[in-house]
């Protein structure tokens, strides 16, 4: 039954076989013709069709009708200019979306360009610095450099030492608290420019547990505050001040005595 139907379809296709090869785009037609190519009946049909088509091409076009066949198109093709394309609401909407996405991408890229291990925590602590009031800290009148011993003895925090650049400044208060990831953070308030110092655990490699180190000082910025961060013995130290990097630079460049 299927074979019969297939043969019938092939016969139908052969009856409609194109006169010239340029109409031979259909694969099923090509296949039907290739099967029947040598049959005398099909050859006669093709010769007959070609002769009739040739005769049709001899139909002359009257002069009045030929006037329509000028070089220019009957219906002018509307050229798609850039202007028209840009005015298209769909193109406009897509363009705006692409620009916004690109903007967000660039913003994220630029803002993370100077990231370093622990920069996210440092930014959070700058937020803490902005919202901290002196009464929230335990009063402490000492040199900042001496508080490392206090943190070790009272809170068991090893290597929570203030770097020598800030060790000589006198403090007005300090405290130890846990951040939202239960990491213990030491916060010191200095009399100098109402600067705040933070000491907190450095980031570690999730697989090996090794401390992710970085050399020198790095800056972070958040809500008008700037922090200068350095790493030492698995502990990050940040000096935070309301202002810009210029406010911190003199302390970091201070020559050792």
């Amino acid at each position, binding site marked *: 039954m299927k074979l019969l139907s297939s043969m019938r379809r092939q016969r139908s296709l052969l009856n*409609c076989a194109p006169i010239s090869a340029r109409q031979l*785009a259909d694969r099923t037609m090509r296949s039907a013709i290739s099967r029947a190519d040598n049959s005398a009946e099909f050859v006669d049909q093709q010769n007959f069709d070609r002769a009739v088509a040739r*005769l049709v091409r001899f139909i002359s076009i009257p002069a009045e009708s030929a006037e329509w066949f000028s070089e220019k198109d009957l219906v002018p093709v509307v050229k798609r200019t850039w202007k028209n394309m840009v005015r298209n609401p769909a193109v406009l909407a897509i363009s705006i979306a692409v620009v916004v996405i690109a903007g967000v991408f660039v913003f994220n890229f630029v803002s993370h360009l100077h990231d370093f291990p622990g920069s996210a925590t440092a930014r959070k602590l700058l937020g803490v610095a902005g919202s901290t009031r002196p009464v929230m800290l335990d009063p402490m009148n000492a040199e900042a450099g001496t508080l490392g011993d206090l943190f070790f003895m009272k809170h068991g925090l090893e290597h929570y030492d203030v770097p020598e650049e800030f060790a000589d400044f006198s403090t007005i208060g300090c405290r130890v608290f846990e951040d939202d990831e239960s990491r213990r953070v030491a916060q010191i308030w200095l009399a100098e420019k109402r600067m705040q110092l933070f000491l907190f655990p450095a980031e570690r490699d999730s697989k090996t547990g090794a401390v992710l180190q970085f050399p020198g000082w790095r800056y972070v910025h958040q809500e008008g505050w700037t922090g200068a961060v350095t790493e030492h013995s698995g502990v990050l130290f940040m000096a935070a001040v309301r202002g810009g990097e210029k406010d911190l630079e003199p302390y970091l460049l201070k020559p050792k005595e």
Partner: protein
Amino acid sequence: MPERKQNLPQLYRFCFLMLGDSQKAQEVFHATLREAAVRAARGELPSEPFWLFRDARWRCLDATKSDLQPESIEMDERDVAPDSESQVQRLDPMQLAIWISAAPDPQRSALALFYLDEFDYREILDIAELKLSELSRFLAKGRRQLQAWLDSKFPQPSKV
């Protein structure tokens, strides 16, 4: 405009084959193009391909509706002969057009579109709104009838 440019000389030939009369063919051809120009000016051109041919076909059918219709008689049919080519060559294009235009539609449309050698079979099915089996039947029958007519018009010397 559709991607494939509408071939205007072929459009005229199509009208001529459908109507078998140069004057009528010109009228339909001009009416079709005028209508197309008006629609283009309004920006209402159809997006489907070969709409000019489809439009012209309906105009041709409409133009012949009021004409005297040929009696529906069973025409002779003959197998296509190996030497039919020479018989066709002796025909005048006008004679062929008159013969095709006398065929009942949709066979007339099928023959006119097919012998324009402008469209593949799927395009003809689309323009003439036919199924493959119908187009095949009309073309096969048309060939056999045309062969019979050629035989009667230009009898071949009998082979001994």
